[in-house]
């Protein structure tokens, strides 16, 4: 019975992940086999042409995405961590209202934010710049980050902070040497998601960085498709490479990922 369940589970997973397999398969397919009917179900005449194209043309895009992702993580933590500490432990008046605003902010469609940002960026001259993109991408993560970190920091035992206070530590000191180290796990969760969202962002990139000299990988792929390009092995190879962060994340930090998905959605 249990063995049967494992077999069914494997079959279901195979069906679910077929598109991912197909992406990998196509990325190894030769140009002349691309329109073959029926297609090769395995890369029988595998080629690395696609990946060569990635190396030749997509490296700058990947570099920009890396910078944008790391910048977004830094900005998000810088803003969210102190706010979460305050909401969780310092009892600000009006803190409830702020949490409510953050919940609402999470629900605003990105395309609408993009239009507002476009208007502002155009007049301030940050349109098509990497810092502009980092700021816009951070709006995907900041409300989530504050809410998650607040929830976690609320669980830090009061005695721990009391002890620090007795030892003469001020609010700032307590934050830096107690709260932050104790919150390591939730900070990792938040950073992973902030990075992944910035890395995957297409809406802001395509509206705010379309004419930029430094463009992220999502636009790299989009240009590929848009040019009516028929080199689908190169497109899919780029897609495979663009999926690496998500894969690494899943392997390295599986439990954080599941935690982040559930966070805020389920009552314990």
């Amino acid at each position, binding site marked *: 019975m249990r063995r049967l369940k*494992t077999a069914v*589970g*494997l079959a279901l997973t195979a069906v*679910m*992940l077929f*598109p*991912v397999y*197909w992406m990998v398969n196509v990325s190894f397919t030769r140009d002349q086999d691309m329109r073959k009917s*029926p*297609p090769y179900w395995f890369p029988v005449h595998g080629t690395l042409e696609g990946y060569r194209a990635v190396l030749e043309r997509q490296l700058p895009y990947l570099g920009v995405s890396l910078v944008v992702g790391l910048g977004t993580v830094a900005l998000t933590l810088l*803003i969210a961590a*102190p*706010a979460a*500490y*305050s*909401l969780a432990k*310092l*009892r*600000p*008046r009006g803190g*409830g209202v702020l*949490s409510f*605003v*953050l*919940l609402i902010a999470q629900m*605003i469609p*990105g*395309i*609408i*934010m993009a*239009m*507002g940002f*476009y*208007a502002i960026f155009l*007049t301030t001259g940050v349109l098509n710049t990497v810092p502009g993109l980092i700021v*816009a991408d*951070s709006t995907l993560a900041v409300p989530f980050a504050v809410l998650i970190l607040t*929830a*976690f920091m*609320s669980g830090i035992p009061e005695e721990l902070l009391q002890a620090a206070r007795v030892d003469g530590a001020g609010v700032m000191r307590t934050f830096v040497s107690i709260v932050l180290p104790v919150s390591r796990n939730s900070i990792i969760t938040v950073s992973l998601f902030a990075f992944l969202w910035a890395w*995957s962002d297409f809406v802001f990139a395509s509206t705010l960085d*379309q004419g930029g000299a430094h463009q992220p990988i*999502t636009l790299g792929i*989009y240009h590929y*498709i848009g040019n009516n390009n028929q080199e689908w092995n190169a*497109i*899919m190879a780029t897609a495979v490479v*663009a*999926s690496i962060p998500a*894969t690494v994340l*899943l392997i390295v930090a599986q*439990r954080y*990922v*599941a*935690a982040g*998905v*559930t*966070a805020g959605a389920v*009552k*314990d």
Partner: protein
Amino acid sequence: MSMSRVTRTPVRTARAPVPAQGRERRAARTRSGQWAAWAFLAPVVVYLLIFYAYPLYRNVELSLRNYTVRSFVQGDAPFAGFANYAKVFADATFAPALWHTIVFTVVSLAFQFTIGLALAVFFSRNFRLSATLRALFLVPWLLPLIVSASTWSWMLNSDSGVVNAALSWAGAGPVNWLTSPDWSLWSVIIANIWIGIPFNLVVLYSGLQAIPSAVYEAAALDGAGAWQRFWRVTFPLLRPVSAITVLLGLVYTLKVFDIIWIMTKGGPSGSSSTFATWSYRLGFGNLVPSFGPGAAVGNLLILMALAFGLVYIRVQRRQAAA
């Protein structure tokens, strides 16, 4: 890290009653405490004002003025009142876009939820490899949307796509998934269902874990079969989590833009355009942008998302209080 702790909404903070004795000293401390508390909040408040409130304000302003590319730069567009909204409502695209938004959202959610729940139940009893397989199911949700969307585009390609190859192998004729107005909306819905299943699976799975196994044992002792156990025990007990999952899914699905735009650009001839893609097309998709109407459509979309968003928050609060 106990994730159950993280899942609680951190809105209410218990305030300890202050004893009469030493109230003044306490008040002074609280006042300085309030300063510190708000000093830590200052960055996020400033951030919200500049990077949320202001763009939203600009968006409302865009929708109320008659902008052209030139007045966009110079900032002297004439006030137009609700003319942009009237234009949007009268547009031939309005009714189809609204209908597509509803179909896209409802059909996506129905399938995501049903499949997600079935998988959650399937995975709820541990078996060999179950944890690993469950983790693999997360992959579609984690991939960048441009990756998923372009993969599906190629799979659904009329001449060389693997889906049509499989159909012809099964004896069915080829379908013009992305290029036929009859099929384009269904194509993007299929891709979107695939992307949304992991979220439903993970959330519903954690909801199932919270149901004590004693309840099942009692039901089994009373002679309830597996099917009955699901409908009489699991489903009712899972209702709160289900409500939250569907409502969050609603808010997320309403704003889906990337997948549709990358796969079909809302076409052919608007057959798969939703409010999100229509707004983008108006603002950025044409050589001559119409920012005003684009912003107007966007604001309508916000209203829809917020309406469901508020319901979600209400439900969640009520559950947290219960």
